């Protein structure tokens, strides 16, 4: 995975923590630098969490505002981005609770969840890949929240187990158990889809 524990430093000479230290001293330009470094990834996590692009973007903005207001409290005990993700996820939870009905946004925003079909594949393969992707997206969004986040953080966003447990404030054993359950549920959904596809093609062939 491209990010992992090197996520904070990718392409930057100054570490997040050093920039955050400047921001703690009231340096707005330093804080803006942190926003630009982490907005895309935080948005991606919150988009998976909420399933709604607009909601994810608003929660991302609120998270950064809260982070700025609390930057004095960031003492560098955890990495800046795990601290930020925690704020972002809590913000998304708060917003979901305030929403009429009190739950998460139900449907995946398919327009904004980018589709990356393999361009070398033929049109039929591309269509199959897109379909499989949809099955995966839906299976992930249907996961209970406590299972979805471990899978998103570890298996999609590529955080290490220790970074993801830090974000979720979970013990490693609990995190791994949830991650395993999440993977098994998604795997089953994909298996069901593939089995259906096979029986479809058999019935078409007969």
């Amino acid at each position, binding site marked *: 995975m491209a990010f992992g524990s090197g996520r904070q430093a990718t392409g930057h000479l100054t570490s997040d923590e050093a920039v955050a230290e400047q921001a703690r001293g009231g340096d707005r330009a330093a804080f803006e630098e942190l926003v*630009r470094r982490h907005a895309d990834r935080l*948005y991606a996590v919150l988009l998976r969490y909420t399933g709604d692009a607009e909601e994810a973007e608003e929660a991302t*903005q609120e998270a950064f505002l809260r982070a700025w207001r609390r930057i004095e409290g960031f003492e560098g005990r955890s990495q800046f981005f795990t601290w930020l993700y925690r704020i972002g996820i809590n913000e998304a939870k708060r917003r979901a609770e305030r929403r009429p009905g009190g739950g998460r946004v139900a449907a995946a925003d398919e327009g904004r969840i980018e589709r990356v079909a393999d361009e070398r594949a033929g049109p039929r393969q591309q269509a199959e890949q897109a379909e499989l992707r949809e099955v995966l997206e839906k299976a992930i969004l249907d996961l209970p929240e406590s299972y979805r986040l471990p899978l998103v953080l570890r298996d999609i966003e590529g955080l290490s187990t220790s970074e993801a447990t830090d974000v979720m404030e979970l013990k490693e054993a609990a995190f791994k158990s949830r991650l395993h359950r999440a993977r098994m549920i998604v795997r089953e959904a994909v298996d069901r889809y593939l089995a259906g596809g096979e029986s479809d093609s058999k019935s078409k062939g007969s």
Partner: protein
Amino acid sequence: MTIGWRRLRDERDHRWARPRYSAYIDGDLTRRQQRRLYRHQGICPECRRMIASLRTLLAALPSLQVCPGWDDPVADRTAEAVMRRIEAEEGSRGEH
């Protein structure tokens, strides 16, 4: 070993293996556990299939990563909106 004993051992290994597929794939088991699961999946088609499909799933999941880019500059929009609000908040605090 008699067939009865072997079957019992295999069933016990199967129950033990099921919650450990992820740990096996992630390399989180001890060497001894890793060997035990490796041996078991060698004789258990169900565990072999589960592990293979989990591996396929794990290979596919990173491709779901959402990557906003030049056509959807989330970072730029966020930075502009956040810095505008910070400025407004601190401006109004300064007035009081």
